[in-house]
């Protein structure tokens, strides 16, 4: 595989990884208020995504892949709300450990990285077409 096609492939793996990350962020945001459905139940636990770099045997470049989607082990928020179905005997409800601000920052970063990968794809395509243009008789 020639180097320019390889860079298209690598950038595409970057796009895939970042969109996976965006999916996890949207899951977290959608479930930012999801409590349990019986007294004292654990609510939704925030998910985190980790990337890993792997050598691609075909193109010789370093692709990126999602290595794991883990659960964030940090503590849940507690709120006093005795009327809730998930409230324990003291009237406290466990709310998900999702911080909307952090998720927003994560989303913006994923967006930026996605744009950078798109830019690489655009450029690799331009370089290929410049080379092909050499064969055109002007």
């Amino acid at each position, binding site marked *: 595989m020639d180097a320019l096609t390889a*860079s*298209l492939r690598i950038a595409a793996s970057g796009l895939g990884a970042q969109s996976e990350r965006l999916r996890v962020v949207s899951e977290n945001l959608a479930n930012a208020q999801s409590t349990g459905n019986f007294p004292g139940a654990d609510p939704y636990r925030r998910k985190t995504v980790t990337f890993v*770099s792997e050598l691609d045997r075909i193109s010789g470049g370093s692709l990126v892949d999602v290595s794991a989607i883990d659960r964030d082990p940090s503590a849940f928020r507690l709120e006093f709300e005795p009327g809730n179905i998930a409230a324990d005997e003291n009237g406290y409800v466990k709310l998900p450990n999702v911080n909307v601000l952090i998720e927003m920052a994560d989303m913006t970063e994923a967006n930026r990285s996605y744009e950078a990968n798109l830019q690489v794809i655009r450029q690799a395509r331009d*370089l290929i077409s410049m080379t092909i243009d050499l064969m055109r008789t002007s």
Partner: protein
Amino acid sequence: MEPVNLFDLAMRQSQWLAVRQTAIAGNVANVNTPGYLARDVEPFEKVLDRTGTVPGSTQPGHMGFGATEASFRTQAQEYNGAILPSKNTVVIENELMKAGEVRRAFEMNTAIVRAFHGMLLSVSKG
């Protein structure tokens, strides 16, 4: 036959630029990977200075970078900026700057090849 072996030189430079583009693509794709060190290809002057002691691939399992026969070495770049907790050394601005350089050089390269090709054509057409 080759006039000042220009076409050979231009071909090697465009190969080198393509490998550099691959290195940039790898860096940009791994911009959020923990522990990833930014890579770059060796400078083109060094490639020119090296006289033909490139280890050839004798088996299909041998790897060259970007699977091109002209093996340009890529290595992790020196980094003396702030170390992030994730130990990632990719600076996205640097990568985009390098991408701009590659683009400029590639445009120049193809323009030169086209100009010389036109000259050769005008000679052969008479």
